[in-house]
């Protein structure tokens, strides 16, 4: 799980072009949207595509994303339980 969290942080920084953010600055439980990293709806779309492409998880209900992308820890738990690749 720790490895997956680290992997997710690296992917979030790279795919969302968060040039000024380091892995150490993203806490496992920090909110990704709103007050935390300040991600927006376009980032949410990027993360949905990442889940599909890298972990074989298709999110059909956008409301699901709101819960899954709350923090890196929640993402990692969801991916571990649902990944197909």
């Amino acid at each position, binding site marked *: 799980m720790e490895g997956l969290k680290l992997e997710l942080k690296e992917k979030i920084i790279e*795919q*969302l*072009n*968060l*040039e*000024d953010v380091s892995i150490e600055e993203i806490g496992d439980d920090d909110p990704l949207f709103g007050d935390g990293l*300040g991600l927006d709806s*376009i980032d949410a*779309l*990027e993360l949905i*595509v990442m889940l*599909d*492409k890298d972990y074989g998880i298709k999110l059909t209900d956008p409301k699901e994303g709101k819960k899954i992308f709350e923090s890196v820890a929640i993402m990692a738990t969801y991916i571990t339980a649902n990944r197909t690749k």
Partner: protein
Amino acid sequence: MKNCYINGLGCVSAQKTTESGFLDDIVFYDTNILPVINPNYKEYIPPAAARRMAKGVKMGVVASSLALKDAHVEVPDAIITGTGMGCLQDSEKFVSAIIDNDEEFLTPTSFIQSTHNTVGAQIALGLQCKAYNFTYVHSAISFESCLIDAQMKFNEDEASTILVGGVDEHGKHTNDLHRLIGHIKKEEVGSADLIHSNTDGSIFGEGAIFCTLSDEKTEHSYAKLVDVEIYSQLSEENLESRIKTFLEANKLSIDDIDLVVLGNNGDVTFDSYYKTIEEGLFKKTQQVYYKHLSGEFNTASAFGFWLASKIIKEQEIPTLVKINDQPKKTYKNVLLYNQYRGENHSLVVLQSC
């Protein structure tokens, strides 16, 4: 026709044009792909906005910001942007993703940012400017199309301050293709020897050049934009007569022109257009060129426009842009001529004011 003054300039290029001074420390390159000298983008663009901007957008935002600041204008009445290839890096990224992922897993960012009008849109967003915003995409006359549009806006009293610019960025795949078809020189000639290279193709560059145009002259004005004409097709045989007609329409003769700014790009096949007037109509006129400094790109003529405006204001010509060496005089009327591969020709006259 209403007066149109150049009141501010901003230039991001392969030269140190965002710094003070006027080409007094020219940078030469050994490669055939000239990159811009990046300004500190963080000084101009908030990190949250910058993370989705490709280089062309960032260059455009900085150049436009400098042009507005130079003219002491906060928000213009219109933003008109010219670009030949638009946001090429994001276009390449998006198309590559389609191929690499077998048309699946397409992410939104590069698609959104890949459209040609992204630069004009991002400038407007940054300024919160909801005024007229238009982007012209027409190869080597993209920038000049913007100038014509700006003139018409002034003539119709629809604006009194207009931000006009040209932006193009490198795209690796696109440059590879241009190299393959010989538009980029096969041999590394170095920018210093460009016009003496005597081979096909050119060296490619990128950049963003903006100007603040106004119908009112200020103490900061660089020059007056007198007239612009564009032609998609023009033969070498008809070039001189076309120039004469253009000048006559503006009540100018060949002798009235004090300086000619030419778009020579070192391509032996197409520089013959420039040779025609260098050795013909303007044999006794001071001639300068600039694509050894900027590289060739669809809106490189905007760099020539920047150069001409600066020369008129400073009344000095940097030695390394001179094609010939005529006795120094007052540079009042300046003619700019550009074409790319024998197509999309433009004539512009600037005048001191």
